[in-house]
């Protein structure tokens, strides 16, 4: 059986690869969206923090013998904590300034973090094993489904939808949404907005760290892995609409799939298709697919 001249096995395989990539896009752009919404900062260090998450997994295994599941719990805490320190020490001072300063600060941070990791680990990739429980593949009859890849898609969906639920359906989320609109008034009502800002940044960073751990077994861990993915993720954020929660999740997954299918049908376009879509979307809807015009 073929779909537009492509064997269905290859088609479904690329579709799954696209979904896996899309899962990382979704988790990273979701973190960016949450941070941008409340802090008004375009966090260029997000890719470096994602890379730090992957290295927590690598080092935990290499130095302490702690496996994947430990890392999945530890990395968001460690890297999220690092994010909280950055927010308290550095970002606090620039909220009232133009976006450009936040962008420069976080871009500089990304360069420093990546530089430090390159100093210690070089630029060659480090392999990371797939956890035992998720080795192998399941034969679905119409395709062979690698267990770990299916797990990545599922885990990312759970994390993303859980985040969406908390933000859109709970009281805590109502504070967050209200704080995004009018932080001064929310604080006048008695909510500790500065603390909320710090924790939100920590949470967005923790999402990046989870992404890094999930990515560790499917890519080569290296200090530049963040810079490679972050450019696409920014395109995802722009297409989805700056600050839109659902927009970043759906656009992340969708663009991963489109990228994957481009590899099947016209491989030369697979690395540019996202940016072509970005250009078209910006022409038709400058605020992004899910963004609100201001």
């Amino acid at each position: 059986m073929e779909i537009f001249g492509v064997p269905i096995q290859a088609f479904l395989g690329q579709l799954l690869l696209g979904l896996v990539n899309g899962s990382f896009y979704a988790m990273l752009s979701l973190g960016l969206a949450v941070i941008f919404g409340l802090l008004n900062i375009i966090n260029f260090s997000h890719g470096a923090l994602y890379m730090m998450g992957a290295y927590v997994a690598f080092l935990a295994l290499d130095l302490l013998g702690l496996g994947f599941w430990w890392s999945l719990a530890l990395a968001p805490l460690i890297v999220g904590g690092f994010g909280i320190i950055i927010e308290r020490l550095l970002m606090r001072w620039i909220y009232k300034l133009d976006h450009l300063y936040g962008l420069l600060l976080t871009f500089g941070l990304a360069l420093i973090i990546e530089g430090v990791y390159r100093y210690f680990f070089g630029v060659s990739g480090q392999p990371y094993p797939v956890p035992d429980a998720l080795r192998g593949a399941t034969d679905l009859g119409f395709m062979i489904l690698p267990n770990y890849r299916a797990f990545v898609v599922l885990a990312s969906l759970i994390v993303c939808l859980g985040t969406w639920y908390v933000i859109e359906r709970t009281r805590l989320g109502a504070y967050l949404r209200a704080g995004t609109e009018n932080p001064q008034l929310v604080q006048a009502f008695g909510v500790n907005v500065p603390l909320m800002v710090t924790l939100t940044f920590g949470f967005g960073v923790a999402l990046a760290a989870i992404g890094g751990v999930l990515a560790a077994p499917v890519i080569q861990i290296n200090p530049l892995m963040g810079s490679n993915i972050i450019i696409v993720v920014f395109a995802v954020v722009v297409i989805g609409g700056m600050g839109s929660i659902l927009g970043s999740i759906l656009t992340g997954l969708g663009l991963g799939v489109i990228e994957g299918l481009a590899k099947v049908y016209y491989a030369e376009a697979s690395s540019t298709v996202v940016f072509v879509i970005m250009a078209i979307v910006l022409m038709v809807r400058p605020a992004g697919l899910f963004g609100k015009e201001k």
Partner: protein
Amino acid sequence: MTTAVEFLRITDLHAFYGESHILHGVDLSVNRGEVVTLLGRNGAGRTTTLKSILGLVGHRSGSIMINGREAIGLPPHKIAHLGIGYCPEERGIFSSLSCEENLLLPPVVASTGLSVDEIYDMFPNLKERRMSQGTRLSGGEQQMLAVARILRTGAQLLLLDEISEGLAPVIVQALGRTIRMLREKGYTIVMVEQNFRFAAPLADRFYVMEHGRIVEAFSAGEMRSKMGMLHEFLGI
């Protein structure tokens, strides 16, 4: 009438937005259970006075005693917990929250607040529209919501900024009834009002502001003899 207990005392309050010096030594006091109105032209410093009480200005100095506690050095989120509810001039209804989420947003600061059911009895429209997006409500409903949501928190001192502005007369009358009822329930209210005819029958006392200072203070009983002065200051 029982002896007056002071709820709010402001002494020599100066407030700044960046480089601009807005309040130049404001002194005023409000007793528990009183309704006090700040009158004055636009730009006289009335809204800034309310915002200064809440700590929402760039910098402020002087003294603000709320319920016996000094608030001048506190961050805004702690000031609210001294028992203050704030209804801003632009109403501050959040568009990303439903009507009911707006109502439930302000944290409870004291156990004396109204329950959601009591609030819906007072404002049946809000119950009908509780699932609507906050900013889809009519101007009048948004104003009701902005007042209603601070009644839930148990705040005893309500700061109401221009609540009658831009609303149909029938809504303004309903708001007047609400204020009267709140006064009967023992709330302490500081209102900023442009609409003198709305404020006049509601307030116990009035302060007139000009150029960031209090220039006149009088009680409701003295109003008749002050009309000449009010014409001069407010052009009414």
